[in-house]
C-alpha cells in the first residue's frame, strides 16, 4: 500500500512540476545593443513569392553598414519565413503566436488585417499621418500616394505597402478569333471594357456563342476563381455596389447591386458557360486549364502570370503571349467604366520593443526600387513606388508595364475589423445563388439578415 501510494504521488508530483514550465522560451526583447534578430513572416507564399521576406536579409546588411558608418556596431540577423500555408491557416498561426508573445517583429499580410490586428493590439502604429510616415524615410515618400490609404486605420498609419496587384479579366485571343473576331476587334476589347461599352452581359453573350459554336466545351466559357477570394466583390462593384462608408466608418450593403451580382453569377450557370458546382475545384486543375487555352474568359490576378509561365503553360511565357489578352473587369452597367480590385500586401510591425527605429529602417531599406522590383518581376506584382515605373528592369517587363494602367481604375477592400464576417456572409450567399440553392432575391434577403446579426450597428443597409 505504501509503495503504491508513494509511486503514485511521485508520478503526480512530476506531472504537476512538468506542467508548471511554459512550453518553450519566449523571445527576449532586443534590448541588447550588440545584436538584433528579426523574424519576418509572410504567408500563402509559393517559391516565387520568397522575396517578400528575403529582401529583408539584403536590407539588414544595408542597415548594418549604415549604422557602422555612424559608429554603431550592431549585428542584425534576419530570420525569413515564407509560409506556404493558405491565408486562413497563416493568419491563425500569426494570431495565436501574437497572443503568446511569439509574433515575428515584421509580418507581411493583406492590408485588411490592419483593422482587426490593430484593434487586438497585435501590431503597432508607425506614424500619426501619411505626411509623418513620408517624412521618416525617402523610400516611404517614394511610395505611390494612394497606396497609403490601405495602411490607415482610425487616422494612423499602421503598415508599409509591400506590393500590389490588379485582377484583370483574361480572355483567349485565339478563341475569340475562332469565333470570328478580327485582330482589330480583339485588340480593341480592353479599351471597350475600360469605357463601359463591353459589359458583363456582352461577355455572357460572347461565351454562349462560343459554346454553341463548339469553340469551347460547355462550361468552359467563363471561369471565375474556384475558391473564396476578394475577386468576387469586383462584380458587386460592377453593379454599383459599395462596401464601406468612410464618413461613418461603417460597412455598407447595397441590396440592388447585390441582387444583380447574384443574378449574374446564376445566369453564367444557366447559360451553360460556367459549371454549376464549380466552387471547390482544385487550384492546380484551374491553373492548368486556363494557362493552356481551354477557357474563353476567366478572372484572375496579375501575380498568376509568372506562375502560369513557369509551372503550367506547356509553351512557357511565349504561349501565354500568343493566346492570352487581358483587360479590366467589365462593368455590369452600360457606360460605367470597368475597374479592378487591388489587394496590396503590407509590412506590419508587432512590437515597439523591437528596437523602435531599427525596424522602420529595415522596412525602408526593403522598400527600394531595386529590391521591390526584384519581387515584382519574380512574382508579377505591380509597382508600389513612383520611381519604379521608369526603372529600367520594371519598365522592360512587357507584362508588368502593360497592366500598370489598371491601377488608375482600381479600388480596395476596406480596413474595417468586421470586414471578414461581411465578406463571409456575402460570399456564401453568392455560392447559394450561383448553385441554384436559392433564388438571387432570397439569397439577398438571407444575407442581409445575417449581416444585421453579425455586424449590428456597424452596418448600413441601402
Amino acid at each position, binding site marked *: 500500500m505504501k509503495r503504491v501510494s508513494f509511486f503514485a504521488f511521485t508520478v503526480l508530483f512530476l506531472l504537476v512540476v512538468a506542467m508548471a514550465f511554459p512550453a518553450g522560451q519566449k523571445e527576449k526583447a532586443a534590448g541588447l545593443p550588440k545584436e538584433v534578430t528579426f523574424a519576418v513572416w509572410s504567408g500563402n507564399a509559393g517559391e516565387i513569392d520568397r522575396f517578400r521576406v528575403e529582401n529583408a536579409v539584403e536590407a539588414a546588411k544595408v542597415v548594418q553598414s549604415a549604422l557602422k558608418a555612424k559608429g554603431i556596431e550592431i549585428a542584425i540577423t534576419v530570420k525569413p519565413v515564407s509560409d506556404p500555408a493558405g491565408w486562413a491557416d497563416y493568419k*491563425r498561426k500569426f494570431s495565436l503566436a501574437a497572443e503568446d508573445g511569439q509574433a515575428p517583429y515584421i509580418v507581411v499580410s493583406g492590408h485588411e*488585417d490592419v483593422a482587426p490586428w490593430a484593434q487586438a493590439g497585435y501590431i503597432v502604429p508607425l506614424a500619426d499621418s501619411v505626411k509623418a510616415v513620408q517624412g521618416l524615410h525617402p523610400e516611404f515618400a517614394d511610395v505611390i500616394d494612394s497606396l497609403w490609404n490601405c495602411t490607415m486605420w482610425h487616422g494612423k498609419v499602421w503598415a508599409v505597402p509591400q506590393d500590389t496587384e490588379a485582377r484583370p479579366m483574361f480572355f483567349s485571343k485565339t478563341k475569340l478569333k475562332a469565333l470570328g473576331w478580327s485582330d482589330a476587334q480583339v485588340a480593341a476589347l480592353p479599351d471597350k471594357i475600360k469605357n463601359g461599352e463591353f459589359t458583363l452581359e456582352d461577355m455572357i453573350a460572347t461565351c454562349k456563342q462560343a459554346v454553341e459554336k463548339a469553340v469551347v466545351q460547355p462550361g468552359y466559357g467563363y471561369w471565375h476563381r474556384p475558391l473564396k477570394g476578394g475577386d468576387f466583390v469586383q462584380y458587386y462593384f460592377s453593379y454599383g455596389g459599395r462596401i464601406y462608408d468612410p464618413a461613418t466608418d461603417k460597412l455598407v450593403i447595397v441590396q440592388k447591386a447585390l441582387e444583380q451580382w447574384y443574378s449574374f453569377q446564376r445566369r453564367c450557370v444557366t447559360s451553360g458557360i460556367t459549371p454549376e*458546382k464549380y466552387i471547390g475545384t482544385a487550384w492546380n486543375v484551374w491553373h492548368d486549364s486556363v494557362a493552356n487555352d481551354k477557357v474563353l474568359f476567366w478572372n484572375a490576378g496579375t501575380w498568376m502570370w509568372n506562375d502560369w509561365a513557369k509551372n503550367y503553360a506547356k509553351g512557357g511565357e511565349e504561349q501565354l503571349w500568343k493566346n492570352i489578352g487581358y483587360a479590366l473587369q467589365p462593368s455590369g452597367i452600360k457606360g460605367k467604366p470597368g475597374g479592378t480590385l487591388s489587394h496590396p500586401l503590407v509590412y506590419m510591425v508587432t512590437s515597439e520593443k523591437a528596437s523602435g527605429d531599427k525596424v522602420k529602417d529595415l522596412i525602408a531599406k526593403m522598400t527600394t526600387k531595386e529590391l521591390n522590383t526584384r519581387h515584382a518581376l519574380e512574382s508579377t506584382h505591380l509597382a508600389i513606388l513612383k520611381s519604379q515605373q521608369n526603372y529600367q528592369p520594371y519598365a522592360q517587363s512587357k507584362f508588368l508595364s502593360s497592366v500598370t494602367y489598371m491601377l488608375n481604375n482600381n479600388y480596395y477592400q476596406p480596413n474595417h475589423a468586421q470586414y471578414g464576417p461581411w465578406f*463571409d456572409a456575402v460570399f456564401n450567399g453568392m*455560392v447559394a445563388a450561383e448553385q441554384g440553392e436559392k433564388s438571387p432575391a432570397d439569397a439577398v434577403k438571407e444575407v442581409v439578415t*445575417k449581416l444585421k446579426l453579425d455586424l449590428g450597428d456597424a452596418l448600413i443597409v441601402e
Partner: protein
Amino acid sequence: MHASNSQKAAPGSSVEALARRKGSLAWFWFLLPSAFLAIVFFFLPVLITLVISLTNMTTATGLSGWTWLGTGNYRKILANPDTVKYLWATTRYVVFTLLFNVVMGLVISLITTHMPQRSGLLFRAIWLLPRITPPVVYILMWKIIAANLPYGILNQLIVKPLGLATMNWIPEAAFLFVVLVNGLVGASFGMIIFTSAIESIPKDIMISSLVDGASVLQRIRYIILPQLRWPLLFVTTYQTLSLLTSYEYILILTDGNFNTEVWALWAFHQALSNYWGNFQYGMGAALAAILVVIGVGMAVVYLRYFRFGELVQEPKIDQL
C-alpha cells in the same frame, strides 16, 4: 465485527484487514490517471469553452480585450437562417454514416470469420488501411479517384469507357462521398469489435449448431447475432457521438461546400478558420458548447434506454 476479527489469530486478521483496505482503495489509484486526463482534457476545456461562449471574443478583441455578452452568441445562432440547414446536414451525415459503419462492420466481421483464418486476417487488415492512413493522404487519394479527366481514376476507368458524361464527382455527389469517406474509416471500428465478439463465442456451440442441422445463415441469425447485441449497442453509441463531433475528413474533402457543412465544421470555421483573419472565438465556442450538450444528451439517452448499466456488470458472452 472488526473487534471480533482482530481477536482471532492476530497476524492473519491484520493481514485480512490490510487486504480489505488495500482492495478498497485500489480502484482509486487505477482510476486516477484516466480521471486526471478526463478532467484536464475534457471537463476543464468544456468549462473554458462555455465561458468563452458568453463573450464577444474575436481576433479583433484579442484574448484579453473581450466583453461579456451573456446569451448573445446563442441568440445569434437561433436567429441565423443557416442554423437549420447545418443541423439537418449534421443529422443526415450522422445517421447515414452510422448505418454504413455498423452494417459494414457487421458484414465484414461475419464474412471474415466464415473464411479461413489467414484470409480473414488479410481482409480485416486491408479494411484497417483507411483508418491508419493519415487523413490528408487518404483524402488526396479520394480526390484523385473522383477528379475529372485527365486526372480522375473513376472517369478514366469506368465512366468514359461506358460512354457516360465525365465530371468531377465530388461536387456532383458530395454527400455520398462524405458518407463513403467516413464510412470506410469507421467500419473498421465495428469490424474489430464484432470480430472479437464472434470469436469469443465458444467453438463447441458454433460447431454443434451446424451438426444439429442449422445452415450458416441460420447460425448467424439465431446464435451469432444475439451474442452481438451488446457490442452492437456499444458501437452504435460510440460512433454516434464520435460522428457528431468529427469534421476533419469533410474539411479536407469539401471544406463544407456543396451542402456538406456539418455543425462541428461550422464551429471550426467560425472559431479557427477565416480567410480575412478575423476569427470568431466566442461564436465558435457557443456552437461547440451546443454540440457538447447534444452529445451529452444523446449519451444519457443511450445509457438509459438501452440499459447500458447491464453491459458493465457481467460478461454476457457466457450466456446464451
